[in-house]
């Protein structure tokens, strides 16, 4: 196809896209919204453990040891005040230690230790507090645990440099932006079918293949440009920019293939929206596993978006490089090309 024909088609599609108030608005809004959320979220992770303590006769050694464990202690004047602090959410945990507790422990008695947990504190955090207190109690009773720990961190040591929530969300935003474009492009094609303008184009010397190549260039360009812009604005390209760029480009190709598939099965704008939402929901699943590791099973790896999310996340946050991501890139490229070819074939079949 002549370059000027491709330019003509892409210019036409971009004109129509941005003259559709809904898509122009959604495109700008999504970019601004995601960037805004990113910058509003804290850039660091609060790694401190906080605890309220009411202990009328607690020995200073107890408080010191807790502080050494990284716990910030807030001494309370009464059990009532402690309870209120937990209920109000000022601290996640409160502990009351009765008078004579340490002496009882030292004498080998089973002494009470009352813990108050905030209602939304996850079970694993509750366990962490229990374990810290048990360990301290053993130590203070003169019977430390007979274990000597040796520790080694595999991969980058993130202690003190935990990945903030906004960096974990960034791949999810990028994937959302790419997937949103599936609806935009599918709608653009569907609108041409509904308005019968495709029919007018196809009685010119323009070949069907060229027509859809124009759509593909528009779709890949729009999706890639938006995701790239978001990553650039949020500093997501500071590590391995070429690798991230290639990943986003493959993601844009994948989004375009899915858009073609949606346009080939959708009958009108409403069905484009329905299919588009379904596709977004399914393909966004891998992005959530980044936020909450372990929530999903291995089957998510059959979703092509897994390789997109995983690559962006690990490159941006875990210092992964080309060598680490070769497998992911190959899988993403294979999925993207397969979906694109399938979508183009389905579309061609529908309109020929």
């Amino acid at each position, binding site marked *: 196809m002549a370059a*000027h*024909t491709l330019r*003509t088609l892409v210019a*036409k599609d971009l*004109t*129509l896209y941005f*003259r*559709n108030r809904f898509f122009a608005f959604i495109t700008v809004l999504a970019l601004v919204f995601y960037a805004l959320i990113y910058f509003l979220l804290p850039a660091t992770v609060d790694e401190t453990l906080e605890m309220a303590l009411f202990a009328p006769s607690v020995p200073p050694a107890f408080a010191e040891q807790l502080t050494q464990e990284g716990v910030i202690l807030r001494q309370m004047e009464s059990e009532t005040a402690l309870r209120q602090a937990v209920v109000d959410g000022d601290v996640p945990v409160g502990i009351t230690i009765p008078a004579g507790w340490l002496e009882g422990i030292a004498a080998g008695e089973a002494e009470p230790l009352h813990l108050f947990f905030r209602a939304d504190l996850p079970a694993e955090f509750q366990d962490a507090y229990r374990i810290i207190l048990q360990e301290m109690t053993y130590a203070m009773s003169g019977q430390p645990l007979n274990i000597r720990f040796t520790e080694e961190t595999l991969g980058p040591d993130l202690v003190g440099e935990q990945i903030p929530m906004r960096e974990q969300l960034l791949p999810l935003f990028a994937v959302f932006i790419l997937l949103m474009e599936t609806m935009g492009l599918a709608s653009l094609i569907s609108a041409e079918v509904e*308005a*019968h*303008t495709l*029919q*007018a*184009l*196809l*009685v*010119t*010397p*323009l*070949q069907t293949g060229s027509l859809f190549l124009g759509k593909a260039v528009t779709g890949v360009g729009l999706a890639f440009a938006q995701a790239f812009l978001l990553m650039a604005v949020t500093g997501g390209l500071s590590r391995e920019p070429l690798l991230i760029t290639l990943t986003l480009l493959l993601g844009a190709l994948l989004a375009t293939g899915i858009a073609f598939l949606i346009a080939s099965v959708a009958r009108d704008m409403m069905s484009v929206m329905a299919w588009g939402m379904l596709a977004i929901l399914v393909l966004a699943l891998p992005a959530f596993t980044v936020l909450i590791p372990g929530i999903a099973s291995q089957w998510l790896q059959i979703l092509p978006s897994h390789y997109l999310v995983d690559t962006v996340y690990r490159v941006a946050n875990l210092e992964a490089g080309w060598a680490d991501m070769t497998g992911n890139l190959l899988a993403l490229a294979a999925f993207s090309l397969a979906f694109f070819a399938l979508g183009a074939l389905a579309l061609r079949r529908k309109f020929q």
Partner: protein
Amino acid sequence: MSEYAIVAEDLTYHYGELTAVDHISFRVEEGEILGFLGPNGAGKTTTVRMLTGQRRPHAGRATLLGLDVARHPKEIQAQIGVSFEITNLYEQMSAVENLELFARLFGVDGFSAGALLRRVGLEGREQERVEGYSKGMKQRLMVARALVNRPRILFLDEPTEGLDPTSSRSIRNLILEERERGATVFLTTHDMLEADKLCDRVAFINQGEIVALDTPRALKQQYGRRLLKVEVAGPNGQMETREITLDAPDTGETVAELFSREKVVTVHSEEATLEDIFIELTGRRLV
């Protein structure tokens, strides 16, 4: 170069069990305006789609400008212009943008949208988005779009349907100008008066078959009745109408006798319309 712009041989098309076009054959000479007349669902648009390469015939063959449409659709589409029955313009774009887009796709050098828009009476509003146009303006723009490549064959599918008289006249003038330029025009319509005024020949299509194909005059001579309608005043002053067939051997005597015996108030000659002939041939009305 073929002396026929369009040759259809046994063209057939089915939609499932329904035969929309049933083995039709006809030829259209270069520079001729052929009217393709029939009611809705008769097979007019399907025929246009096969002739313009949008649909591949299930049987038969169409040749345009000496090229087989099924084998060379793009070469043919470069030389034809099509105005569709359904309005299919880019409504979010202006008239100029619509025309320039198609001019670029046809590879037309030095295209001037302004000149074409003046021809269809859309000057002054060429930069407005098409979504704000009236139906007549959109239809005129569709015809203008079909002319961007100065086509050798112009297909117009119901170009004046539902339009105001001014828009209809504008489109009819444009069709005649194109014929003057040497273009062949394939006009589908169910407006018999329009066909009568514009077409060199007309084909009647009904239920996928061509039931008659000739010049309007020949069809009227072959199938129509010429009448004299005479209004006479009755004995009590009431008006009565008498019909006298003009082609009967004793027409002269009948007219003379009527004038001598009765008080003639008005006399009108009437000839059969294409619609009358269509009804006579098919038993159906056009709309």
